[in-house]
């Protein structure tokens, strides 16, 4: 199995709370995996553990045959693994274009950029890819919420990732923005971008992904196709009382 990302039994406890317990996941190239689970299940913690923002207590993360468990975030990004944040984390005083230019100056993106090509032109292309080209000179603090989400994705894409991690990209979006985001993700999937998406809004997620992993209280309780997951008793149980679909 040629998996590009292997998460092997990672765990993390915060004080007395076991946030993630023995989590395993294998992702192959071009996969589109969804991670679901009730609030506080540990989904974002898994992302933090994979991307080097937090160090796991146990277990390892292997990416393209290399153990990246102990690497710093910027090193992991430069190996091709990039994420977005649930609470959008951008450079508020800078313009949209500048926001996307920064990752273009990462070691990895600079390598991948053809010689003589200007960073800002490359950044513009990424903005065009998410439909924000017209807002390039707008300061981030003036952008609409839906636009911020798309900008964050453009920013992450500008690091030329082999795997893109999206953390609740649909949260807070209205129907129109969600449709735009959905089509952007589909386009990226068609181009072969490997992605893992954490999402709470099941309806939006299940339309897009091919396989789903369910986490409850830090543990993986189910893995399979969207159909199978939706009928899984443990999953249904976890969501009872939480009838937001």
């Amino acid at each position, binding site marked *: 199995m040629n998996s590009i990302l292997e998460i092997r039994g990672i765990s993390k406890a915060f004080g007395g709370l076991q946030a993630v317990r023995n989590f395993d996941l294998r992702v192959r190239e071009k996969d589109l995996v969804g991670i679901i689970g009730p609030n506080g299940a540990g989904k974002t913690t898994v992302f933090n553990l994979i991307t080097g923002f937090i160090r796991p207590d146990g277990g390892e993360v292997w990416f393209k045959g290399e153990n990246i468990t102990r690497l710093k975030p910027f*090193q992991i990004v430069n190996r091709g693994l990039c994420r977005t944040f649930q609470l959008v984390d951008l450079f508020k005083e800078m313009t949209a274009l500048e926001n996307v230019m920064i990752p273009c100056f990462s070691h990895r993106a600079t390598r991948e950029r053809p010689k003589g090509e200007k960073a800002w032109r490359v950044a513009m292309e990424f903005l065009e890819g998410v439909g924000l080209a017209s807002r390039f000179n707008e300061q981030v603090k003036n952008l609409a919420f839906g636009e911020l989400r798309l900008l964050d994705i453009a920013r992450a894409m500008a690091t030329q990732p082999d795997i893109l991690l999206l953390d609740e990209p649909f949260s807070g979006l209205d129907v129109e923005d969600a449709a735009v985001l959905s089509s952007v993700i589909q386009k990226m999937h068609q181009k072969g971008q490997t992605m893992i998406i954490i999402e709470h809004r099941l309806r939006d997620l299940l339309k897009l992904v091919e396989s789903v992993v369910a986490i409850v209280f830090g543990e993986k309780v189910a893995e399979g196709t969207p159909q199978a997951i939706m009928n899984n008793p443990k999953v249904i149980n976890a969501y009872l009382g939480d009838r937001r679909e």
Partner: protein
Amino acid sequence: MNRYEDLFGPRMFYRRLLGLAIFSAVVLLAPLVVEDPYYRELLFLCHYYVILASSWDLLSGFTGNINFGHAFFIGGAGYTGAVLNLNLGWQPWLTLPIGGITAALCGLVVGTVTLRLKGPYFASVTFCFGALLYKWLMVSSKFLGGEEGLSGIVPLTDSPLGNYYLSGLFMLAVVFILYFISKSSFGLILRSIGENETASEGSGINTTYYKVVAFIISAAIAGVAGAMYAHAQMHVGPEMAHDSLSALILMMAVVGGMGSIIGPIMGAYLLTLVNETLRFMGELRLLIYSGAVVAVIFFAPKGLLEIFSRAIRRLIGQERGKVI
């Protein structure tokens, strides 16, 4: 300003160049109007502080890592130059670069171990380095002069006019270099670190590397300036490493507008001139400074540059975006 070619293309570049050219012309031609040696010396001081404040700004204004010990490099290099001159007879053309290199090396060492620390910790450590140097110089033996410092250093040039031009040329060189660095990708990255270091890391930027490089450049420039000052005053004393100097430079940058290079230039000129004119007020001066800094923070947090830019914007009818 709606096409992206405008932002990155030649028009903006030439506009900036023009602004700096005008400034250079004023600096170079000023002595034709200003003939009194007292004022020429005063302007020398302005040049000195512009160099110090703008070099400080490169790291602290852009990345937000406030350096409370800039005087460490100034005093350190000043004394290095003095010692080399008094003991080995080295002349300014040698001591100034050596001062800069020494400061750069110190910046490398100090920066590598301290720049992984978050804001207030970095500020404290830099302060400690400055304070340690100061205290050590104060209790040092005859070799370093102790409280009195060292005198009899070879003068920088043979006249206030010479000093004016040497410092002025140095200042212009520094301003040009720092300004264009600030507008380059390096400057953009530094600003991103200051804005949101986590997001910068998350975008694949090795933030420590960039901070250290900025620190080294900042230190090197301050070092050359320190050596230059030592020769101009023909004397070095522990006060060159004192935290009040670091604080003064900081205030100049804050009042002028941190993170812009141009702001600290304005702040340095303004506060140096204010400093001189208020000299007769003795201790009250510091009170006025602190009051001014507080006022700026509350009413114009981005400094004088912000006010200045707004005025220019209104003049040329541009709604938003960058002016210079």
